[in-house]
């Protein structure tokens, strides 16, 4: 019984060693942008995440020096009502993509630490379930932009 447990442990450790790559290492981020609103109104940030790994990757949120508060949110429109809710995570399927885009998943940015204007680049650290992070540059776009503009 004891040897069996030990065997499991060793196997487990070996497996961990074999799949050492972090979640962040399997992710490629593109079309990263945020919408600049006047004053210090909360803004939305958007990005497309592509997972090249064999395992699903879980985005848990993000942080940035430029904003005191970054939250993962989802907008919905059921029965003609626009609502917004906090979500714990967004899963990027293996060899698939997850899109954070207007009217769906987005990062809500609150309380900017300095004024941000269209054209600026804002660095954000995307945080994944295994604790790994991915530094991503988000382009600040004008309020009336509808997409990343590229």
């Amino acid at each position: 019984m004891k040897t069996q447990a030990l065997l499991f442990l060793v196997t487990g450790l070996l497996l961990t060693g074999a799949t050492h790559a972090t979640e962040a290492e399997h992710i490629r981020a593109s079309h990263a942008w945020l919408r600049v609103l006047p004053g210090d109104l909360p803004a939305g940030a958007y990005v497309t995440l592509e997972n090249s790994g064999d395992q699903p990757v879980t985005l848990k949120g993000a942080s940035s020096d430029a904003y005191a508060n970054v939250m993962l949110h989802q907008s919905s429109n059921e029965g003609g009502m626009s609502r917004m809710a906090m979500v714990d995570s967004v899963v990027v399927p293996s060899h698939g993509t997850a899109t954070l885009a207007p009217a769906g998943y987005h990062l809500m940015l609150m309380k900017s630490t300095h004024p941000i204007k269209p054209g600026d680049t804002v660095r954000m650290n995307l945080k994944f379930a295994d604790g790994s992070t991915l530094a991503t540059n988000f382009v600040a776009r004008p309020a009336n932009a509808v997409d990343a503009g590229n």
Partner: protein
Amino acid sequence: MKLRLPNCLVLLLLLITLVTLAGCHREEKLPFRLTDVSGHMPELDFKLTDDHGKPVTGADYRGKVVVLYFGYTHCPDVCPLTMAQLHVVMQRLGPLADKARILFVSVDPTRDTPPVMHAYVNAFDPRAVGLTGDPRDIEALSKRYRSAYTREPDGKDGNYEVSHSSAMYVFDSKGAARVLATPADSQDDLVHDLHLLLDNGNPT
């Protein structure tokens, strides 16, 4: 010399006169692509404050084709998207858009003061007007068009969201409700219907 008009031209002129006369009494039927609400919703009427702090009523927008949308400035995702899309619609209308107005009505008058609304609407489109005011007056306008909104519970930091109807209401230059648009509708269709109203809309 006596002017002689061909018969078909006389008939055409007569027809145009009749259509114009009919238009004086009830709305002209137009081939809208979006939901036609002509005759099914009350005319544009409200008592609010615009983003310059000036008291305004629905009558102040007669002569303009109006797109009415309810939202709030602390809404980070859907409201700015809708306003940005309406800006694109205005751009696609070209010079005709000068006879149109986007009326953005706040469902969060506590935070949305006229100066906040002014900065907000101007970030989207020069033809956008921000309307705020007494919560009862906003509720009255919302109920008038069977729209709804609910303030959600405060978050940890005191911030709160407001869930709200996502519909857009289009009124002709006489203030009559004509078309109902939803975010799921195609932008082409909205441009098409606004075109109809701006072309046929009785010029002022």
